[in-house]
């Protein structure tokens, strides 16, 4: 720990110690009086990928994009395939759309299960301030074996569905431009349908339990990125929860719809990207409100805030109860956890609906076409929020330009503000108060940003907190 007495303006840096790519870091700017002035959560965004895919045939993109991220390959696969569909400019067989939807939902279930059970439930069950070395899935397994088992099982079910549909590979190549490359076998469908009831039981059990402990977290609910923002995401044409297709809808903090039925192709009209002077991260904002007033959130919380209902029986009940939490939109980011559980329930119910329809077994699952459109945009709702893939190709179908907006990027402004909220609470002068790390970690985790470190299997994020003077000198440092 390095200390210095005299300072005027300082910066506090929280850095993950891990060397894995895709990590985040938090800097906190102090003003002349030593008070927190600003906070920023930096993510090593996926850069250079435009260069990587330049000159490649567009139909290779889904698999190429799935490789970008080892955490949510399926989400990129699906969004990329949709962008490619747009380049083919042909009608994708409805069964292919449904199969991709099931795959996407299986990814949602397994990702949310990881976030809730493995990463966050130790906080709820063992306490935010318990020993970080034990505040993880292993500590959980000792103290609350059933919860740990349930979490592992639910995630496994999600992963098995992905495997059964797309093959055993970590980076599935089943989803292709124009559809999927193999129809669903009867046996596979039956196997998937057979495990869904167990999954639903686990999910509803967890939600029932979570609702009973919410009261213990009043403090967190009040302070975890709890502020008005817009919420953005996809809804179905009839206003239901939707992760694969649909239109953009934006609601304000009071829950009023401010924009609806926006074609995803015009995403650039509603999403602006601000470049912060000292950051390599772009901060998307809701364009009509400008920057930074256009701060918005995406992901589970946003999706439940923008939808009129979920569209499946059990999830609809839970959704109605959830929306009672606040008068307008549900604002505290602590409720991301709650929203995740509801989405798991929805995902399971929806998969069941889709798989029970007879046309899911149709053999017509792929459309073939050439380069009919020089540009393609694919938008989906990934577990963490709206995912946009946008490509341009030349006459021969080779990529000349690519852009991608990921969920963690959308939430950037809100995450910064959330960290700021915590920092104000826990930073005093040149000292970092105990509990700061745990709270920052928990706030970041509520958003479940796609960072290797945040999904580290062992649970807690490796963090480094640095308090810096305006001249860059380290005033205080905490490491874990």
């Amino acid at each position: 720990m390095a200390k210095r007495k005299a300072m005027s303006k300082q910066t506090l840096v929280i850095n993950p110690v891990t060397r894995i790519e895709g990590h985040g870091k938090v800097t906190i700017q102090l003003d002349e009086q030593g008070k927190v002035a600003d906070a920023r959560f930096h993510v090593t965004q996926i850069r250079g990928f435009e260069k990587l895919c330049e000159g490649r045939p567009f139909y290779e993109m889904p698999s190429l994009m799935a490789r970008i991220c080892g955490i949510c390959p399926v989400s990129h696969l699906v969004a990329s395939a949709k962008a490619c569909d747009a380049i083919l400019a042909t009608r994708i067989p409805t069964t292919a759309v449904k199969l991709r939807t099931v795959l996407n939902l299986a990814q949602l279930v397994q990702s949310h299960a990881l976030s809730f059970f493995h990463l966050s439930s130790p906080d709820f069950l063992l306490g935010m301030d318990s020993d970080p070395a034990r505040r993880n899935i292993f500590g959980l397994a000792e103290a609350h074996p059933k919860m740990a088992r349930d979490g592992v099982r639910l995630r496994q079910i999600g992963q098995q569905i992905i495997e059964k549909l797309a093959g055993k590979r970590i980076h599935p190549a089943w989803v292709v431009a124009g559809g999927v490359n193999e129809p669903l076998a009867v046996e596979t469908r039956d196997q998937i349908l057979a495990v869904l009831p167990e999954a639903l039981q686990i999910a509803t059990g967890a939600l029932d339990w979570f609702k009973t402990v919410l009261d213990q977290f009043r403090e967190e609910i009040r302070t975890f990125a709890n502020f008005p923002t817009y919420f953005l995401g996809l809804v179905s044409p009839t206003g239901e929860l939707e992760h694969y297709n649909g239109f953009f809808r934006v609601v304000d903090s009071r829950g009023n719809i401010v924009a609806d039925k926006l074609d995803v192709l015009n995403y650039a009209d509603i999403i602006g990207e601000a470049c912060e002077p000292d950051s390599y991260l772009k901060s998307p904002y809701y364009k009509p409100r400008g920057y930074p007033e256009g701060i918005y959130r995406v992901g589970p919380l946003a999706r439940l805030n923008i939808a009129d209902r979920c569209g499946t029986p059990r999830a609809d009940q839970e959704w109605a109860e959830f929306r009672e939490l606040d008068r307008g939109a549900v604002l505290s980011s602590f409720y991301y956890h709650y929203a995740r559980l509801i989405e798991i329930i929805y995902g399971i119910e929806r998969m069941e609906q889709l798989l029970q329809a007879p046309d899911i077994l149709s053999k017509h699952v792929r459309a073939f076409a050439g380069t009919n459109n020089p540009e393609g945009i694919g938008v989906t709702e990934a577990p963490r929020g709206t995912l946009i893939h946008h490509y341009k190709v030349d006459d021969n179908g080779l990529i000349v330009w690519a852009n991608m907006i990921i969920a963690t990027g959308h939430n950037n402004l809100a995450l910064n503000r959330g960290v700021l909220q915590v920092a104000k609470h826990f930073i005093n002068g040149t000292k970092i108060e105990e509990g700061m790390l745990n709270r920052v970690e928990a706030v970041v985790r509520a958003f479940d940003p796609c960072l290797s470190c945040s999904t580290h299997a062992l649970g807690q994020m490796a963090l480094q907190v640095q308090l810096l003077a305006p001249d860059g000198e380290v005033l205080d440092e905490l490491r874990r």
Partner: protein
Amino acid sequence: MSQAVRVITLTMDGREISARGDQTVLQVARENNMYIPTLCHLTGLARVGSCRLCLVEVKGINKLLPACVTRVEEGWEVSLNSERLSKYRKSILELLFSERNHVCAVCVSNGHCELQTLAQTLGMTHVHFAYRYPRLAVDGSHDRFVVDHNRCILCTRCVRVCDEIEGAHTWDLLGRGVNAQVITDLNQPWGESDTCTGCGKCINVCPTGALVEKGKSVREMTKQRQFLPYLTLMRERRW
């Protein structure tokens, strides 16, 4: 084979074998179910002996000999798979991998590629040479096919099949050494080639993901080679 050919005897990896004197080491080995790795060689096409993967050792001869273009001789003691050979073969593969951009994970030929299979069979685990990472273009101008120079190993199978079997001679080589590249016609986009008949033979003989059908996704490109021995045979009969 008009006149009578001498029958000779030799050993391969210690096994006594009899063969006709006009056969190559590779032919004899294959007839006897003995494995020699090959890459540029393809039965039905002219032999060029360029990849050197089929090198074998013959007792008393200092040089290593390419099995695909070397005739067997009386009394030879040939080893097909010595330590030394395995080292050389692996180095050849490593050079091939380091020369261009082989990212198997995202390659359309992943899982159906001769180069990849050879690397697995011969136990090539590392590339000890620095990768060159050249920036090579993909030519997608043809209606149905694509050439990705990043995956080309310059085996010239495409050149030979196009010339010898299809008779179009669309493909050829341009440049030398590390700068060599396969080209269509007078180095113009494939889609503008006057000679290409669109028969697809080159696609099917290409051992890697360099020549592929358009629109194939990762792992989807499988090649059909059955046509080649059949075509050659039919033409031999008729001509």
